[in-house]
């Protein structure tokens, strides 16, 4: 069993798996059950300002995108921040933290974009002995219409300003949660850093309509005949989240800024991928909402198993390990050549590789009368689509050795060469 202990901004937790600020962390009952199940930390459901709490809809709050067998691939929600009184949440947080001192407890906060509002709430959160705060600049629905959530997260100047207030009024570590509903994630991350943020967490949910009721012609989830855009999360958003995490990790302006990775983490493998691209820990929501708190046990055993096999003795050793290999397209080696090859023994002859290649790619797969599929090296551009659509994973990519002739181009494989120096690149030619 590898040591999964996590130290994020000095906040210690027995593992790097935290529950994200969301419906699962809305109250003491849930959070205690989460800790009993083994979660390393919890970001409490976002607190609002003192006074009458927000209200939620009383119709469906979630929409869903299914894969085969009704597997939840994506979830969309129109739930707002906590709809329970601030005082109740603070009391419960205090109680939980007292009983689980070894677990991380973070307070997520969303109050109006006014200094007084932040100044008022921070001391009260501190009294709970929470380990840190997370600024919710992310939620794209409802609260954004009131100038909060993603309405703040979409304006780097606001992020910087509010972050600075928080750093000024509290000793607690400040994590800024970023919205993905922007064009370039690096700008808000840089703003958070300028404001003094100790870390960023991302991504919050993505603005979305999951589906349309084709009988009533309304977006789903539908409330009395109307629907609204909501925040999308779950496995479907992981690729978007991974890219944004990597963008921040490799941006010289933010490199080294601790990152809490969020977005579709469903298994230990997803978590390890976020770590590899620069996150120091991960936050999970949809997987818990789909399967319950118990899934953390697989995440713990899986990550531990992986680390043992790889010889890693701490989570930090994974963190950022793939960042140096994340680059821009222009630096990819254009002289690297691979060819698909089909393992005939494992092939079940479904022909999906053939249909995909013949109809939508490069006509590089041949089929015999007895359904034996083979790759035409002279046509294969190594696009990988056949590998992607194969249901039994019997196609692999063979790397051509240096000097080996590529049957498609008739030229031997050369050493490293990228677009910046490619003869077809006008900039490259201009430089010569």
């Amino acid at each position, binding site marked *: 069993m590898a040591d999964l202990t996590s130290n994020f901004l000095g906040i210690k937790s027995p593992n790097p798996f935290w529950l994200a600020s969301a419906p699962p962390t809305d109250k003491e009952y849930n959070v205690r059950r989460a800790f009993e199940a083994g979660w390393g930390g919890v970001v409490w459901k976002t607190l609002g300002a003192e006074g009458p709490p927000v209200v939620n809809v009383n119709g469906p709050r979630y929409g869903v995108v299914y894969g085969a067998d009704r597997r939840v691939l994506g979830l969309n929600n129109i739930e707002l921040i906590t709809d329970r009184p601030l005082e109740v949440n603070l009391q419960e947080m205090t109680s939980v933290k007292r009983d689980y001192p070894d677990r991380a407890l973070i307070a997520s906060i969303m109050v109006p974009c006014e200094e007084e509002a932040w100044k008022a709430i921070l001391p009260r959160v501190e009294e709970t002995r929470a380990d840190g705060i997370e600024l919710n600049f992310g939620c794209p629905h409802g609260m954004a219409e009131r100038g909060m959530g993603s309405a703040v997260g979409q304006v780097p100047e606001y992020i910087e300003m509010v972050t600075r207030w928080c750093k000024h009024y509290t000793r607690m570590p400040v994590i800024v949660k970023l919205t993905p509903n922007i064009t370039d994630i690096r700008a808000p991350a840089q703003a958070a850093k300028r404001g003094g943020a100790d870390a960023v967490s991302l991504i919050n949910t993505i603005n979305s309509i999951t589906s349309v009721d084709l009988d009533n012609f309304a977006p789903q989830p539908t409330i009395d005949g109307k629907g609204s855009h909501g925040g999308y999360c779950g496995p479907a958003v992981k690729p978007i989240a991974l890219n944004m995490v990597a963008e921040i990790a490799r941006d010289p302006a933010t490199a080294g800024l601790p990152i809490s990775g969020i977005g579709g983490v469903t298994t230990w493998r997803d978590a390890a991928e976020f770590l590899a691209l620069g996150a120091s820990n991960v936050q999970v929501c949809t997987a818990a909402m789909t399967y319950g708190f118990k899934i953390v046990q697989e995440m713990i055993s899986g990550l531990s198993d992986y680390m043992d096999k790889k010889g890693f003795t701490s989570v930090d050793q994974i963190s950022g390990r793939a960042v140096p290999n994340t680059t821009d397209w222009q630096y990819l080696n254009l002289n690297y050549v691979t060819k698909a090859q089909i393992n005939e023994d494992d092939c079940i*002859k479904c022909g999906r590789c053939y249909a995909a290649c013949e109809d939508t790619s490069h006509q590089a797969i041949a089929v015999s009368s007895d359904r034996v599929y083979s790759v035409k090296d002279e046509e294969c551009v190594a696009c990988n689509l056949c590998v992607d659509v194969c*249901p039994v994973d019997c196609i692999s990519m063979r790397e051509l050795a240096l000097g080996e002739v590529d049957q498609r181009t008739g030229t031997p494989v050369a050493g490293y060469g990228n677009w910046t120096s490619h003869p077809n690149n006008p900039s490259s030619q201009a430089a010569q």
Partner: protein
Amino acid sequence: MSNSQLTEGICANRLSPDALAQNFTDIAPSLTAHEAQVAADRCYFCHDAPCQTACPTDIDIPLFIRQIATQTPDAAGMTIFDSNILGGMCARVCPTENLCEGACVRMKAEGKPVEIGRLQRFATDGVMARQDHPYTRAAATGRTVSVIGAGPAGLACAHRLAMKGHSVTIYDARPKAGGLNEFGIASYKAVEGFAAAEVAWLMQIGGIKMVENWQLGRAGDGDLSDILAQSDAVFLGMGLSGVNALRLKGEDKDNIIPATNFIAQLRQASDLAALPIGRDVVVIGGGMTAVDAAVQAKLLGALNVTIVYRRGRDAMPASAHEQEIALSRGVRIIEHAAPKAIIGNGAVRHIEFCYTKNGPDGLEMTDATFRLPADQCFTAIGQTLGDMPEIVIVKGGKIITDGAGRTSMARVWAGGDCTHAGDDLTVTAVAQGRDAAEDIHLFLAKG
């Protein structure tokens, strides 16, 4: 009810009505919508799908399963019916493990195919449950076609011709249409009168007249020349009405009857409890008919039912799945044994068998023998063509046809089990009936 499974001889009421109802319930009930969704999700939507290639009627299986998976089961049903108007019955009786499901690529992947047969039933049941018939008939052409035999081949042929606007008359020797579907398969495969309901549904296309109790060549009915005189074309789909004999002394003893007769009697029985069955039943043969007869004898309450087949189980025409059904219902299968003598005074009492072995020149009888007690013996050793008009060329007991179903005689087509192309499968008969109809239609269009 004083009888039981132990009662000697042949008698009715061996089992309670409840037990009989339980025994003869649908062997593979329709999938629920959820089950269908889960089953459909397993389909890989293969290119040039092996399942479709394996289907004699060439149903676009990947397409209909995708239509189920995307919650349009009626569209799926239509995909099936477009190729196979008897898709509902085929979903119930096809030996799918030898056809579509046997070819499913998931057999290699996991040894567990997509449940194509049950998905087909799900889709076709849905369409057939609607009150309307989903096809409309083209404008009447004024052409007339006679179809001999209201079995799968004849029905498929008639429907396709009627759809194209021709007037069709179907003649069948039995008092009820449906052929093998109505009289020749195990009851638990097509419960609640499905075969008759399917005929009625199919007839809704219009333009088809059904003449029952009419046998080709029977005095007072008519012969082929009579039929030809009153039609523009004729399709022969009368199946195989005769049965092979055991060619044993004593074969004429009482209670030795063709398995097909027993099955037909059972299928038409209004009260299964009233149907007499022996305590000891022997079925001779190794095909689907043998299995259907044996299993139903067991389900009626026979104490000992034994199938005796002259070759090994691997050579049985009944599929492995059918054999499993028999074994799981308590039927005993004795392989490599052939009947040698029938013993009994007036009625059969015992049957003597000798064991066989495979020799260089085929099957050899050995000296080792055994006897089985038999109150009843059902023979299922193959069926034969009934009397055929000599004007159609017959070879090896079957009508010779070309690829389009044309016989040696002008304006006469044939399909199904009565032809050389038949292979004792409903689905093959449907394909041949359909294809002959297309060829007849082309022929009529030219004329």
